[in-house]
């Protein structure tokens, strides 16, 4: 469904991504493990068209999208929920969500139905729908960010560090919601430092270090791998 081949990205002289190749099939939940600065966010920004690639190809549904505009990529069904959430802090929760459906603005009815499903997934957002997004707690803002991404009707959802800075209980809620979204058929690419929790819900995972994929495998393989346990799980 989504297949990256030889993705290379430079910031000036610095090579942030080095020939990254990976794939995600329909309905899969694929986790990207890696430390801060390993290249996870750069990878997602490159897929979304917000960073210019030096080389490589991104094929989505058998179509090359690597040179497309960010708005076309969203419209084609790859939606990115970024690290740091990037909400519109002064706008209400409801307006943030509706702007998530910007590329589907001609189908207002579909978006109205979808916003009810987002409220079903995160009932607390319904209570806070008229509050400015910036006034919410970190966990609630993360839910707005995921909800906003869902409003873009993703076939592939890129989630960048959704658990960053959240309390453990909230992390579990967020991951449960991600699992639920995935169970409804959305392909999920999830970047996480919180390796143990992320691997619990993953089908497969890649490990990225200094812009390179250094390991890949299914959940059990990675959970049992000694070097992964040492580096990312701490047990």
């Amino acid at each position, binding site marked *: 469904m989504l297949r990256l081949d030889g993705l290379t990205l430079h910031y000036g002289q610095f090579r942030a991504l080095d020939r990254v190749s990976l794939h995600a099939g329909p309905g899969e939940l694929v986790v990207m493990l890696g430390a801060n600065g390993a290249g996870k966010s750069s990878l997602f920004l490159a897929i979304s068209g*917000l960073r210019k690639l030096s080389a490589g190809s991104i094929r989505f549904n058998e179509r090359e999208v690597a040179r497309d505009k*960010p708005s076309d990529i969203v419209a084609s069904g790859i939606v990115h929920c970024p690290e740091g959430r990037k*909400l519109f802090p002064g706008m209400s929760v409801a307006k943030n969500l509706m702007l*998530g459906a910007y590329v589907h603005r001609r189908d207002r009815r579909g978006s109205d139905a979808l916003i009810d499903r987002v409220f079903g997934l995160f009932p607390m957002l319904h209570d806070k729908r008229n509050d400015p997004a910036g006034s919410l707690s970190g966990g609630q803002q993360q839910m707005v960010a995921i909800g906003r991404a869902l409003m873009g009707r993703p076939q592939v959802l890129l989630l960048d560090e959704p658990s960053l800075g959240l309390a453990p209980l909230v992390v579990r809620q967020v991951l449960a919601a991600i699992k639920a979204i995935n169970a409804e058929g959305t392909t999920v690419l999830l970047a996480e430092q919180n390796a143990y929790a992320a691997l619990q819900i993953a089908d497969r995972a890649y490990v990225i270090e200094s812009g390179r994929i250094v390991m890949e495998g299914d959940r059990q393989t990675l959970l049992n791998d000694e070097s992964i346990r040492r580096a990312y799980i701490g047990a």
Partner: protein
Amino acid sequence: MVMFFQQILNGLTLGSVYSLVALGLTLIYGILHIPNFSHGALYMVGAYFAYFFAGSLGVPYWGAMAGAAVVVALLAVASERLVFRPLRGAPVLHDMIAAIGLLLFLEAVVQAIWGADFHRLQSPHTQIVHLFGLVAPAQRLLIVAAAFALMLGLHLFLQRTVMGSTIIAMAQDREGAALVGIDASRVSMVTFAISGALAAVAAVLFAPISLVYPAMGDLVILKAFVIIILGGMGSLPGAILGGMVIGFAESFGAFYISTNYKDIIAFALFVLIMSVRPSGLFPGGVR
């Protein structure tokens, strides 16, 4: 007492014109972080096009205003495409130099076409309105009414329409806006067009009670910068309130102190307010 109310009307008139100019300036600053000095030239070009449409082609005043708004909106969009877009990612200083260059360029072009003389734009509304014992030139009342109608329209556009939301979204989080599929270049173009049209309308409203000449935008743009710094860079209510503060300060200062000091008052007030509230009256950007 009558003179006092007279000054209020004058302050409202000046404040309305300043607010319209400042709104365009603060919109562009809030969304693109460009200190657009050429905005003053767009104001001036707006007055000249209305003068041309009304004087040479015989178009009625309001038609000339609409024509000038369209021409200046297009000119503003062209300046975004040709000057500011290629500078995206460059230091802000480059934007500023380019904007000042554009200001000088447009002034020189206008001077080459229409000369350096002063012109007068005639308005059909020359009657004097008597209201509650006050005397008010109709044009001044029109300026205030038109300006408030435009501000309300802008507010409704930004808050109620999808395109308006994209402008605010981009001001609040540029990357977030790109990630929901908002096309940054389209938003930039719309913002420049709105800002240019506002400047042109402000100039055409004000021209019948002032004069049309190539440097007419210079002092206005300086004051508009004072206003948006006063109001908080990127803040729309700040631009309106700041415009009113400067307008009132000028009209009252001119009357109670001296007309000679009219222009100094705005800048003196600026220094004073900045020393008390360095982040402006309404910090916090576009809402």
